[in-house]
């Protein structure tokens, strides 16, 4: 099978008795970036796994200390580059908490719309690449990317960029959504439920897909809690925890939406959770578009943003899980300390126990089902 042949390329490096230690990555197509996994195998079965992170470390937290608060926004784009909106948001929220800024109503609604669009886009990549890892060879990926393209077009209309958006700033958003942007979002929301049905027709009942993913990489709820796993991975393990519901931030308490939950905790459930969340996000966008008020998009701020000494922590539900930003200010134009709690990194710590006992071919499936972005893991 194709996945096994690509593993053969990363050569066997040592043998201890019957056990084989192999390197998977850092340059491996299915590790979703430069991620290295040292696997100890007994035949085809994984007996030990050690993830090695840090190949994409850019020291974002330290760099932020020498840039102004506004300049640090661009770093947040590059953490989870598949969900830049969702990564902009907690940084902005932490600063707003720190400086006591009131965000205008319209900006709040735009933030919700953008973050939910971004959640859909991120889950599309997650589902598409996960299916490619399982062995569908890019058919579902191209279907999901067809609609992701529409989301990126909407982002381009609103902020001029497609990936590194720098859109959600402290105090609001950088520019208003143009008229055709609102219209594009409305059209997108109309077509999206059918498109999600289409992805499901391709994958959900596919016997091969089920055979490859069901009962693979089961994460029991106790273990999920012990490892502080969040996001779709946690909800697939039967714990109905979503920061949007548990501690509503922004205006999320105004919207009706369900927090999908499933109880097997396997790779298949994690896929189903993502599909269900896309549907819920469409619901939220519909409501937010309906209520979108006119008005200001940015709070009045002094040209020089210099919050007083203090610290603040803000957390949001990013597509990958709970994303937190801790900002410590000392009255200067740059933060004294910026700390990021990246969901991908913490979800990845639970990878090793998930892999043990599975075959090598399942390693890529389990890794794909966790949905990591190395930009966020290594920072």
């Amino acid at each position, binding site marked *: 099978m194709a996945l096994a042949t690509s593993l053969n390329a990363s050569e066997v490096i040592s043998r201890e008795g019957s056990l084989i230690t192999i390197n998977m990555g850092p340059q491996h197509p299915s590790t979703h970036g430069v991620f290295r996994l040292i696997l100890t195998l007994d035949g085809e079965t994984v007996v030990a796994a050690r993830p090695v992170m840090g190949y994409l470390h850019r020291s974002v937290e330290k760099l932020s200390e020498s*840039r*102004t608060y*506004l*300049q*640090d*926004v*661009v*770093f947040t*784009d590059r953490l989870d580059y598949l969900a830049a909106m969702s990564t902009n948001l907690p940084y902005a929220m932490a600063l707003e908490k720190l400086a006591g800024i009131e965000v205008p109503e319209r900006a709040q609604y735009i933030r919700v719309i953008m973050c939910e669009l971004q959640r859909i886009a991120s889950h599309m990549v997650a589902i598409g690449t996960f299916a490619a890892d399982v062995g569908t060879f890019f*058919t579902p990926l191209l279907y999901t990317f*067809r609609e992701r393209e529409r989301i990126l*077009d909407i982002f*381009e*209309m609103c*902020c*001029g*960029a497609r990936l*590194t958006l*720098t859109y959600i*700033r402290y105090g*609001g*958003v*950088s*520019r*208003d959504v*143009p008229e055709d942007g609102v219209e594009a979002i409305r059209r997108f929301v109309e077509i999206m439920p059918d498109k999600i049905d*289409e992805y499901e*027709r*391709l*994958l*959900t*009942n*596919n*016997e*091969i*897909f*089920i055979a490859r993913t069901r009962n693979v990489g089961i994460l029991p709820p106790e273990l999920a809690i012990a490892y502080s796993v969040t996001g779709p991975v946690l909800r697939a393990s039967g714990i109905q925890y979503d920061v949007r519901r548990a501690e509503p931030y922004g205006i999320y308490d105004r919207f009706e939406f369900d927090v999908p939950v499933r109880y097997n905790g396997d790779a298949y459930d994690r896929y189903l959770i993502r599909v269900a969340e896309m549907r819920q996000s469409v619901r939220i966008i519909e409501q937010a578009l309906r209520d979108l008020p006119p008005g200001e*998009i*940015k709070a009045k701020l002094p*040209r*020089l943003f210099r919050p007083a000494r203090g610290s603040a922590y803000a957390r949001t539900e990013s597509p990958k899980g709970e994303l937190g930003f801790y900002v410590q200010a000392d009255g200067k*134009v740059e933060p004294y300390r910026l700390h990021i709690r990246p969901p991908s990194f913490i979800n990845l710590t639970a990878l090793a126990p998930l892999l043990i006992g599975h075959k090598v071919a399942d390693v890529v499936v389990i890794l794909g089902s966790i949905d990591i972005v190395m930009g966020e893991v290594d920072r």
Partner: protein
Amino acid sequence: MSGIAGGMWTTLKHFFTSLTQPVTVQYPEQRLPLSVGFRGLPRLVYDLKNGDARCVACAICASACPVGVIHMDTHRGEDGRKLLDRFDIEAGGCIYCGLCVEACPFDALTMTSGFELASYNRADLLWPKERLLVPGTAENDQNMHWIMSGVEKMGKTPPSAWPHAAQDIGVMDEVPEPPAEEAASAADEAEKVPAGAGSAAE
């Protein structure tokens, strides 16, 4: 097998619809329109009327840049105004965040829709001011205003600190001289505004 058949049916259906309604475009020949306010490479704007670049060499953009790719050398002219000797943007390092355009108090920077900036050698990625100049057409100005909306603007467009640049590079034949009193008042403003805004940009 019904699940596999369902998926196959979907792909088969799309195979036939794609014959008449393809989702993709034939990129280099066929291009999709870019939206207004697209953040391409930052460019310097010169006025259509007199060919003057609007830049007054205040260096607010350079200090606003998170990655420090805007390089500027200036000197004081005879009339006390700052003159640009050098204005370079490293296209290889630019992250297209648009913070320089938002910071510019003189509408002197915009971003164009060009995104194909690849080059065969590294030296070509350093864009000097002559290469960065674009005319201040309505289209470019609109793009600029979209990029910086949301930031309070002083909204003035002073005459250039290096007025004949456009003429030098041959984009304009004749550069008309601005009226004397207007130039003097503009010089005052050029001195005042960057001083205040410069401390703000810090």
